[in-house]
Structure formats: C-alpha cells, structure tokens
C-alpha cells in the first residue's frame, strides 16, 4: 500500500533573556550546579512567580514574525506531573489560552515554496537538568543528580499544524524557523546547545484517507540532519508495522544517532493526565494595541522580504541572497559594502565565497573579524583598477583578516607586488618603447598621459607593480 506521512512539530525555543521566566535568577549557561536558583524556581512554599516582561515581548515578537494573532487575553496554567527535574510538581505553561494562535511560515523545500500552518505559540518554563549516575542515560542509571540552574528558563513553544509531509520538509521547517528566530533576535537557536529543541508527531495513513493514523512522538533530535534521519527511520518503522498488518502504539520514542533508530522508553506507557488548571499566582497577559504595535515596529524587515529585496536591488541569485540573509551581520556587512562599492553581485560573491569559507573554517562570525566594509570595498576597487588580480586579492583578503592591517599596506608588503626598482625599470622601458606617441604627448606637457602609462605598467606586470613606485620611476624615466 502507498502511505502518506503526516508530521507536526513542536519547537521549544529559548527566549533570549538575562533572567528566568518567573524569577530573577540568571539563565547563564555553564554556571556551577545549582548556583542560579532561588525559592521561586525551586518551588519553595510561599514563593510567588512574576512573569518576565522581556520574555513576553520576545514571545509576541516571534508570534508576529510567524503571522500569528496575538490573543487579547492569555493565561498561564499548571501542568501537573511528577518528575525529579520539576521541583514544584508542575510546570508553568499555557494551555487553553496561549499567547498567540493561527499563523504560518513559508518554507523553501528544494526550490518549491510550501506554507506550513502554525497552530499556536505559548510561553512556559524549562525543567532542570538530570545527570544520571551509573549509566549515560536514564535507563540503567542507579541514581540521578539534579541541577536546577536551567529550571525556569523561558521557552517559546511553537506548535505547527500537521502540514508537514516528509522528513525533509520537517528538517527544512525547523531550519527556517531557527533562522527566523535568530534573525529577529528572540532566540540564538543552537540545536547542538539545546537552545532550540524539536519534538515530532509522526503518523502514516493510506494515500487518499482523510483520518490520521496513530501517531508516535519522536524526541532527542539534536541537529537538522538528525531530524531528517530520525523521521525517515520512524516513517520506515511505521510502514513496516502497518504492512505486516500490525498496529502502531501511541507512545514517545527516543532517537539514537548511533543506531539511527527510535526506541520506546517503557513497555507500558501510561496515558498522561496533566490536570491543567489556571495558575492562580500569575494574572492574565493582556497586551494592548500600543504595546503590540511597538513590538511590531521593532521587527524591521523580515528575512524573506529582505532576501527578495537583495535579489531585486542587486541582482543576486537566490542562493547567495539566502546565505546572506540567514546571517544577519553578514547581510548588514553586504549592504554597508555596497554603499562604498556598487557592484552588489561582486560583493556577494566574495562574502558568500571566500569570506564565508574562511568563517566556516575558523568557526567565527563576521563580527569577530578585523575585516570591515571599507576594506573589502577598497580591495574590490583595486581589482577593478587592475592593481590586483582576483587571485592575488584572495591572498590579500586573508592577510587583512588575519593581521587587521590596511589593504594598501598588505598590498605593499606582499611579495606579490613588484617593488624592486630594477625589475620595474625593465617594465617601464618596455612601456616607453611601445607607446612612443603617448610618451611624446607627456613630454609635450600633457600631464594626464602619465596615468595611461602607469596603467600600462600595471597591465604589463599583471597588476603586480607597486603603483606609487611605478609612478615615481616612470616620471624619472621620462625626464
């Protein structure tokens, strides 16, 4: 039988705040265990949570970027369950009245644009971190140690509609969302560090059937690539079970990258009974139009719009425009450079080629480099003037990046440039011999003829002559 895969994703994105969702503890990563804890985030009796304004604003900002409707009134709710990483016996989340609902995001899957619906975006607090003793995972551990530093960290949970039809689409959707959240500066979206996490609901149904099949929830996918691999493997597992006439059990399954398979956690999974009820200690969130409008203004131009503008305005191809736009500082660097040097496509080529390759190799961001837009513009102008060949310019670029020196100094210092008087005089003699008419013009008082002759020296030396020295020696030769 032919099956259709149906996937819905829940993305947990850590909001870029300084302090926790409901208390003033730091959310700094890598602190000593249990150093960023307080009575609120460890659930001491009598402590009272107060919501973080910045976290609410970041949630609204993300929701607006995802074309969601901000609900006029949303409330927090207690999700009750017992687990050692949850000190209060409940997680503060949002249930029937989330912060925002009903949005969408367009994803580009191998050249085809597809719109994925966003069911809702709500805010919640993260749990603490468990360190298992006696095994590297919970199964088989003799005991566990709990660090509550992460407990209470603000999370935005973004739930998609079951609009995703393949593992590939799921990976692209997650990456698109990560890029968007990073671009609008609400989340640093690093899957490897856990600031963006993804759970997937997967089911299969015979092609043409309307009802969904039984779903499983897949967890523990720590990269975009892992999402694609995990969901392909889970899809295959469903298909094999269904083909044999078996039934899928609704359960949570963990993906293992080593074996590239998913496995259930317990043999008999109990149905969850979270007994949600409104959190009495946190009043409703009711953002007024003015507040929402202010946040909307702070969004600025969204990446997909900017990408189209870069294509229209500078004639870039989709690929290089995408590379630029999903690295906001790189896109800003690009636009700043084009103000000094107007051939956008050339600037984009250098940034998405040489510069990006360098950044990847050194694991750096463009902001960490000494290279600034004026230097790149100067370098590109030197190529146009014939002072540097493209090949030499690449070497100069790397030296500028690594030494922080000015382009002209690097060019002067580099062995690539001919500064040897004897060698230059040979070239000059040849130019003079080949351009008798221009030489006569110059001697007759036409000063501008010199510029042409210098140009000829540059050309004959394949751009390697030191222009200033060539100028000086040429003058001497002509007097």
């Amino acid at each position: 039988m032919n099956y259709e895969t149906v996937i819905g994703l829940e993305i947990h994105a850590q909001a870029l705040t300084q302090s926790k969702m409901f208390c003033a503890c730091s959310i700094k990563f890598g602190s000593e265990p249990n150093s960023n804890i307080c009575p609120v985030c460890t659930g001491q009796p009598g402590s009272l949570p107060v919501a973080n304004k910045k976290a609410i604003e970041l949630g609204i900002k993300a929701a607006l970027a995802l074309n969601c409707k901000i609900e006029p009134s949303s409330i927090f709710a207690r999700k009750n369950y017992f687990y050692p990483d949850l000190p209060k016996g409940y997680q503060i989340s949002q249930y029937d009245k989330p912060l925002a609902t009903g949005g969408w995001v367009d994803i580009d899957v191998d050249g085809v644009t597809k719109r994925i619906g966003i069911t809702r975006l709500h805010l919640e607090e993260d749990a603490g971190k468990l360190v298992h003793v006696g095994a590297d995972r919970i199964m088989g551990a003799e005991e566990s140690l709990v660090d509550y530093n992460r407990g209470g960290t603000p999370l935005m949970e973004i739930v998609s509609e079951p609009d995703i039809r393949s593992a590939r689409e799921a990976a692209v959707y997650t990456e698109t969302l990560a890029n968007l959240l990073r671009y609008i500066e609400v989340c640093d979206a690093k899957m490897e560090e856990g600031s963006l996490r993804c759970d997937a609901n997967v089911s299969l149904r015979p092609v043409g059937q309307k009802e969904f099949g039984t779903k499983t929830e897949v967890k523990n996918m720590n990269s975009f690539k892992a999402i694609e691999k995990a969901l392909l493997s889970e899809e295959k597992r469903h298909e094999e079970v269904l083909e044999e006439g078996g039934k899928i059990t609704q359960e949570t399954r963990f993906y293992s990258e080593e074996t590239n398979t998913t496995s259930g956690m317990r043999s008999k999974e109990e149905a969850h009974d979270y007994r949600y009820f409104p959190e009495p200690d946190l009043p409703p969130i009711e953002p007024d139009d003015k507040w929402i409008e202010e946040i909307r203004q702070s969004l600025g131009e969204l990446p997909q719009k900017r990408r189209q503008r870069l294509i229209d305005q500078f004639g870039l191809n989709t690929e290089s425009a995408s590379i630029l736009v999903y690295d906001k500082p790189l896109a800003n660097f690009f636009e700043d450079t084009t103000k000094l040097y107007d051939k956008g496509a050339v600037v984009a080529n250098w940034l998405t080629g040489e510069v990006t390759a360098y950044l990847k190799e050194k694991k750096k961001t463009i902001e960490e480099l000494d290279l600034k837009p004026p230097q790149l513009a100067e370098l590109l102008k030197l190529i146009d003037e014939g002072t540097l060949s493209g090949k030499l310019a690449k070497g100069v670029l790397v030296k500028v990046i690594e030494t922080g020196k000015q382009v002209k100094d690097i060019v002067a210092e580099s062995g690539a440039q001919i500064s040897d008087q004897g060698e230059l005089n040979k070239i000059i003699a040849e130019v003079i011999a080949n351009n008798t008419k221009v030489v006569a013009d110059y001697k007759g008082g036409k000063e501008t003829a010199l510029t042409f002759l210098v140009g000829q020296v540059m050309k004959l030396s394949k751009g390697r002559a030191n222009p200033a020295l060539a100028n000086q020696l040429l003058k001497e030769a002509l007097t």
Partner: protein
Amino acid sequence: MRIDVEHVAKLARLGLTDEEKKLFGPQLSAILGYAENLNQLSTGNVLPTSHAIPIKNVLREDKVIPCANVDDIMANAPDEADHMFRVPRIVE
C-alpha cells in the same frame, strides 16, 4: 458523583490502604457532589473566571538578582552530591 480514588491517589503519588480508600472515596464524592450544586445556576452570561481579582500584566523587568539563600535551599535537599539534588533511580 463517584470518584476513582485509586486513580487520584496514583496521580498524587499517595499510597492508600484499602481502609483509607473506603474512607476517602465517599468523602471526595461528597465534595464533588457539593460543587455540583453550581450546575443549578445559570452561568450563560458569565465569562470563565481564571482569577478572582481583575488584575492583568503584572510583570517584572528582565534583571538578574542573585539569590542570597542558595545554601538554605540546598539544605532542604533530602540528599545531596556535588552540590546537586540526589534522587533515587527514576525508571525501573
């Protein structure tokens, strides 16, 4: 109204003896029965109430204030190792 005492006890991680189950069952049912009196009221024009007092948007600025009582909190840990809360095996 009848209540599944065993299910509720399990959710609350309470171990009840058979005697306690017999004792608490009718009591909890009576409480729920009393709350059911509310069903006699006409609430068609009443909005669902999540909070008793009409306040909203009580928020704090995103500012870190380190807690002075971390040691007191750790002292509440039933068991501790490496400045972490030590808990027994989670899944069997």
